[in-house]
Each structure stands twice: as C-alpha cells, then as structure tokens.
C-alpha cells in the first residue's frame, strides 16, 4: 500500500461537507462581538464622561443651526435590531424637509473606494466629493457636481445634468416615488426585494431585501419610509453591530450584514453607519476582504426651487 493512501482515503471521508454559510456563522460572530464590546466599554470612567460631554456639545451645535436632533442614550445598544429600531425612531422624530414635486433636494455625497491586491473590479474614481441636486419627482434633470478631493486638489472635476430615462428599468426611484411606496410592511418588503433583485439577481430573499435597503438608502428617503425600511432590516437574519467610520471619517455605530458575495464566495460585509448619539443615518460601507472597500456618506437634504445659475451652460447628458 502506498505510504500516503491511508491519509488520502481518510482525507476524502466526509470531504463533501460544505463550508458554512455566513448566516450559519452569524450567531457565533455576534456572541464574540458582544463580548468584545463588553471589554471595550470597560475603559476608565473618564472616557465615558468625555463621550457624554462631547455628545452634549454636538447636540447643542446642531440644535443651534437649522437641524434639531433628538438624542438617545450614549451607551451602545446590545443588538443590531436595537440600533435599527432606534434609527427608525430617529427618522420620524427628526425634522425633515417636505418638498414639493417641482423642487429639488440638494445634498452632499462623499464616496471613497479603496482596492486591494491589484483588484480592478471596484474601478472608478478613488475619492468623490459631490453635490447633488435631485429633482423631487424626477421630471427634471438632476445636477451632479463632482469636485476634486482634498487629498488630490488637481483631480478631475465635472458637472453634469442627468435625465431620467423611464425606458431603463433599473433606474433609482425618485423621491416622490419613494413617498408613494406602501406603508404596509409586507408590501414594502416585497418592493425592497424587487429593488434588491435588480441590483444582484438570484439571491435569497433576505439578501435581496438587504440589497434593496442599502440601495434605496443611498439617496434621501422620506422619514416615514426610512423608519419602515429600518424596521424591515431589523428583522433580517445575520445582522450585527460594529463601530465604523463613514467616508468623512466620523465614527458611528454600524449595522453590518455578512454575505458570501466576494470573489469565489468570499465574505462581503455591507454596513449602514449611524450617528452614535442621534442614530441618524450617516452612510455606509461595503468591505470585501481581498478586493477592497467602498465608503459613502450623504448629508441631510435641503430644499431648493431652482438649480444654480451656472448649470444653464451645461448640456444634458446620459440617463440617470
């Protein structure tokens, strides 16, 4: 008998056992993170006091401006579902502009992409600081102004008017479309799954819904729908919390869902990042170990009736 035959035969025994899915591992990971967070929170009291003082300062500063933010306890919630429940409360408790259909929502969007190991699939600009003027009902072109990043002031800058093309089925819903989305949880879940399936087809239902949630929240969403979306996300399997920084470098509490979407079934970690104090959505992150990560953040929208005067010289381009 060959010297290695016994080990080879043994190596083949039960070798068809597959690797576990991310959902299967999620409870163990959540238990580990819960314990890790306990250790993190057991820092000296002085740090906790500093956090509270800073939180108070932040709230005061924001209240003094145009935005009032409801505050919640500064102690980290125990679960991802709890973070999303607080985010749902924050969405409806926080003042939000009520635009007319003929107006624009003006907001800032920052995105940063980092690749690893020579991966090229992320592509595109590495850092984008942009301002967006989005037509509320989608009847007028949106204006996008991509500015050079602070780290690369000589980088490209471009301004474009983007028209909505109804014939393209995968277009992002306009704000007024979202306002009409169903309040009924089952119907909304179905709507999100539909949207998620357009982003990445043939996934399981929970993954489709999560993809729909993340996609829709990438632009302003009316508060009622935001709250309903957070509640639906809270019921999804495989979500957990962690501390992450958004694209502006602001540290927040994140709700992360792990999926096998990376190359060769590698783990992909997609997160929504919330303000630690107010639970207002700051942005998100997708991390695919070995390939790269993308960070994004959006600011709260303001209402404007017209586009900036300089946009009149721009030609309309492409579909949104």
């Amino acid at each position: 008998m060959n010297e290695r035959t016994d080990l080879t035969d043994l190596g083949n025994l039960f070798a068809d056992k597959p690797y576990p899915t991310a959902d299967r591992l999620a409870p163990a990971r959540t238990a580990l993170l819960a314990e890790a967070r306990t250790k993190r929170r057991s820092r000296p009291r002085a740090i906790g006091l500093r956090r509270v003082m800073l939180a108070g300062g932040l709230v005061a500063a924001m209240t003094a401006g145009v935005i009032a933010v409801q505050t919640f306890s500064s102690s980290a919630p125990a679960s991802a579902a709890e973070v999303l429940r607080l985010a749902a409360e924050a969405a409806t408790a926080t003042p939000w502009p009520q635009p007319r259909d003929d107006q624009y929502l003006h907001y800032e969007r920052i995105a940063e992409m980092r690749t690893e190991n020579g991966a090229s699939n992320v592509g595109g600009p590495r850092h984008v600081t942009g301002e967006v003027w989005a037509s509320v009902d989608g009847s007028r072109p949106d204006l996008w102004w991509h500015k050079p990043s602070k780290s690369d002031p000589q980088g490209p800058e471009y301004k474009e008017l983007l028209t909505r093309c109804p014939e393209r089925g995968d277009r992002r819903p306009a704000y007024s479309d979202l306002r009409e989305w169903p309040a009924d949880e089952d119907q909304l879940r179905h709507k999100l799954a539909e949207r998620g399936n357009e982003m990445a087809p043939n996934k399981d239902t929970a993954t489709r819904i999560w993809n729909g949630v993340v996609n829709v929240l990438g632009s302003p969403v009316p508060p009622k729908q935001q709250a309903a979306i957070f509640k639906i996300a809270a019921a999804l399997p495989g979500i957990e919390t962690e501390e992450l920084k958004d694209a502006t470098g602001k540290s927040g509490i994140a709700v992360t869902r792990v999926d096998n979407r990376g190359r060769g079934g590698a783990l992909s970690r997609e997160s929504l990042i919330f303000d630690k104090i107010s639970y207002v959505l700051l942005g998100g992150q997708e991390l695919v170990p070995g390939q790269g990560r993308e960070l994004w953040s959006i600011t709260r929208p303001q209402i404007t009736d017209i586009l900036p005067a300089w946009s009149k010289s721009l030609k309309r381009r492409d579909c949104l």
Partner: protein
Amino acid sequence: MPFSTTLSDADLIERSWRDPEDFALLFDRHAGHIHRYVARRLGDDTADDVVSETFLAAFRQRRDYDTARPKALPWLYGFATNFIRRHQRAEIHRYKAYSKVGVLPEADDAAEQALERASAHAVRRPLAQALASLKGRDRDVLLLVAWAELTYEEVANALSIPIGTVRSRLNRARAIVRNALGSTDPTTEQIS
C-alpha cells in the same frame, strides 16, 4: 489598505489587545475552516456551538497568544479540539452509525440518505469504524493532520504536546486505519 487582509493573524490578535472588536476579523478568516472541520466530526448543529465556544475561549486568552507565530489557525484548532472532546461519545456514535448503515445520523432527508448510502463504498465504512475505535487523543492528532491539514509541528503547537508525541500518536492511529483498509481488499499490500 484594510488591515483585515494585510495583517497577519498575529498582528490582528495584537491589535485586539487594544481594540477587542478586531478579533472578529480573525473570526472572518478562520471560522469557516473550524466549522467545517468540527462538522465533519460532530455534525453541523454541534459545530455551531463548538465554533462559538472556540472563538470566545480564544478571545479570552488572546493576550497569551505567542505573536512570534504568524498563523493562528493551529491555535484555534487547539481550542476546538478541547471542546470536541466534550462530545466524544456522540462522535463515536456517529462513526459507528455510519459504519453500520452508510448514513450519518443527521442525514434526515430520504434522498440524501440514499445518496450517502450509495457513496459509502467499501472503503468509507471501515474508515469510520476505525475512527470510532481510536483513542480520543490519537483521533485528534490523526484528524488534525488528515482533515485540518496541519503539519506535525502545527499539531504539536495546537495540542501543546511535543512533536515526538504527535508522531507516535499518529503512527498508532494510522496503523489502525491501515489495518481497517487492508481488511477491505485482500489484494492490497501488507503494512510493514
């Protein structure tokens, strides 16, 4: 660059001394391997528990990790092995059941059972019987080599035993396995 992919296991563990949540990145790297290994020995449901216990125990002892060893997988297999031992009777029952009927106890689907039975040819059943008959510590060494694909040195590190002990346990276990395989086919060579 994301440290989740550019740092060694030892670097990650060292980071977790300051930032405990970084230990979750070690989980992302290795939990799948540990789970599959345990599931081959004990089935998926018990593997869920063992993986959770393994990473919690490793996290609690992360400051004892020897950071001169860049790869932490053997260290994690060591914790897993300790928790697997608590289920030794269930493990032996599992192998015996398979050796008798060619089906694992957790295969509850009729089609899955039929498929397993069909593939449980003359080699696999005696192998399972041999695994059931091994001493627990010999089986640990054998399966860390055959299933977890650790080197002798890594097994020694995982189980905190001298490398000579790894060799002697492995030789003892392999003799039993060879004997079981030899009895299935009279044309195979005799073991020297």
